[in-house]
């Protein structure tokens, strides 16, 4: 499995305003009716992923799931 650049979907509990996109290095933010928010976007490598997770932790945002997504097949893959 390639551990370098990949797209990720990170799901949080709570609704995060889209203006937070810049804080999360240009990930797109989508809020869902079930009261969760999904961050979606490319991350350079594992270090970038962990950096992003730390930012979420520092805000006290409860993490629900982290998924790596394949761009060719838009459905989610378990990571």
């Amino acid at each position, binding site marked *: 499995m390639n551990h370098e650049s990949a797209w990720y979907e990170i799901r949080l509990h*709570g*609704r995060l*305003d889209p*203006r937070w*996109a810049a*804080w999360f290095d240009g990930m797109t933010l989508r809020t869902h009716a079930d009261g969760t928010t999904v961050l979606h976007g490319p991350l350079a490598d594992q270090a970038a992923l962990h950096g992003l997770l730390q930012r979420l932790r*520092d805000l*006290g945002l409860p993490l629900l799931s982290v998924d790596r997504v394949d761009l060719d097949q838009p459905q989610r893959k378990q990571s």
Partner: protein
Amino acid sequence: MAGLLVETKLFRPRTRPGLVDRPRLDERLLRKDGTGLTLVSAPAGFGKTTLVSEWASDGAAWVSLEESDQDPVAFWTYVLTALDRAAPGVADDALTVLQSGPAPIETILASVLNELSVLPGEIDLVLDDYHLADSLEISRGMTYLLDHLPPQLHLLISTRADPALPLARLRARGELVEVRAADLRFTLEEVSSYFTGMGLDADAIATLEERTEGWIAALGLAALSLRGRSDATGFINDFAGDDRYIVDYLVDEVLDREPAQVRRFLLETSIVDRLTGSLCDAVTGQPGGRAMLESLERQNLFVVPLDDRRQWYRYHHLFADVLRARLLAERGDITDLHRRAAKWYDDAGDTVAAVHHAVAAGDVDHAADLVELAVPALRRDRQEATIRRWLDDIPEDVVRRRPVLAIGFVGALMASNEFPGVEQRLQDIERQLAGPADELVVVDRSELERLPSAIETYRAALDLIAGHPPGTIEHAAVALDLAIPGDDLTIAAASALSALASWAGGDIESAHRGYAAAAAGLERAGHISDVLGCSVTLADLEMTQGRLRQAEATLERALSLAGDGIRGASDMYVGLSRIAWERNDLDAATDYLRRAEELGAASDLPQNPYRWRLAMARIREAEGHLDSALNLLDAAITVYVGDFSPNVRPLTAVRARLLIRQGDLSAAQEWADSVPDELSYLHEYEHITAARLMMAQRKDAVPLLERLRAAAEDRTGSLIEILVLQALAGRDPAALERALTLAEPEGYVRVFVAEGEPMLTMLQRLRPASAYVRRLLDAARQPTRVSTPQTLLDPLSDRELDVLRLLTSELDGPSIARELVVSLNTVRTHTKHIYTKLGVNNRRAAIRRAHQLGLLTR
């Protein structure tokens, strides 16, 4: 490094009065005894720091950690400094060793733990924001600390993420007290008590509790939002009905009600980690920063004071993140703010922060300028780890245009033991230098000239590390050839590297020449402490060459360069003590050690703690106090720190000689079994020791001694000793005759008289008329020097003397208690009395004082 400490990191935050009492948590945290670790682990905004600040006693050792503390030298410097302030003297030795070069963290911590384990009092050590520093190397040291934690030290870690420490093990042993998010959340009762007096009914309180889930940061913000609001219930209902990220929602509420000027101030200054008036003025471009900070503090609006003088503040971490995110969203481009912060920090001399903001501003070239100029000073202060971290911030293509910066990074990589790729970088720099000069970016043109020589010096070092001394000598020669006059540090480095390589190969003459050149270069460059370091080695080589008087002159000259106040001065006295010992002037030898001791740890090079003990052991042995000498040697072994020099006189071999003298031949034989057979200068001392053992075992040592003598012809110091042994083992007057001829001009005494009656008889027979021999005989027949009797006003009791003797061993507090069959508390009481009577406040000082007073020689 001491000058570079950020004082506010060692400041225990003041807690605000009037907050909610939390007896259920206090009760749990009160259990300090028998607890290995208290862990407060919860996300931001759960009131960790407030709680912990109440837990910590007055005078607790407190460290607020930051990301830069992932560097072990920085981390342990702060932790040890905090401990040393809480209990003066406990970390003296450890800090000396830590700051003077690479040493295993276990060695450094062992010396602190040794002190702490007999500490009469107790210390609370708080590591706040531990998650910022948590890293593999920090975990290693912390795990060691936890495994050896003395009961006097109460360790508390406050963190947002569980640390990489053996928590399960501590938990299983019942040695872990944990306070987690679930414990920290405000209960309904606590929420109610928090909002007392704000006119909220029970429903409103319940709604707040439910919506915030007891999250203290959110409750605090809610309270701020409620201030001066007429329709509290309306606000609470709106709040409860919105599922937005709670802190975001509430910060909006608070910010919207602040004047535009305050709002702007909060957002713009959120980019810096620590706030002070003039920095805020620089970043915002507006005056009045200091007054604004004080007003924010009064209103309890996001800021936390970092000192008692209203100078430095920081935003609460959680709000800082929210403010920064909002700033980014509203402004998009915030490079101008970072650029102004970089300038302020640069003017204030804080290069680390200046570089951080220059990089954030996208000014990598400016950042590169700053780094390039900062390298020499950081290297002098052994802060290479800081330089190393910048390598990740500055893009390679910027480095590739900047040869001076590139060589600075090479130095930092070498100091961090990252050797792969260094040769490639050196070749890149050579290519840059060969290319068109106008494509190079250099802040300080004069630095450019020294690069060719510096490159070859690093190659010399690479070869030494790779175990290829001939390559080192070759590259060092080229480096010296290329060196421009006046580049004294490069000349010194190349000379020292060449000397080390020669020494490892047994070429003492070349090694001596190299070190002499290195010392001269360092002296011209004004690095006096390093001159003293070189002088220790020079004197050592001179003694091996049998030039006692020259060794004495070397040490005295080094001392005269800077006097007693400089690091390394103490090492000079220890060296002079050894020369006095060779001349059998034990009073002078003892006196030098006393002077070394009086200078204190700040004058020690990292090797001095073991060298001092070794020197004292030799004196005690000469006085016939063999047990005391063995004790000191064992202590020397526990504090031994190597350097790059070959370990030509291993302490275990010195110890074996003492065992032989004590008649414990089987223990000495056990040591001898591990000595390599191959004869080389590096093992000469061990082989002479082995020959001594054979003589004690009545085996024929003559053939071995003859081989050693043939190999040692150009090392007069070694030769004299070998000849003395040959004379005894082979009843060989010619050997003794030669030894006397070599030894007389330098005034050697100890090497003869230490051999006792058989040697004295031989001397008497051989040259009864020689004045030198008469001097030797007189020295030997002097009654054994009587140590100064105890002259304390309030003498130590017998029991205290027992404890004192054990304090000199490597035993920790509990082991000493076991040895004496008493409780640890009893040991601590005795220790307290001993410290008071000796007028000291730590174990190390007590031991040295005891040695001076001759309390340990019975």
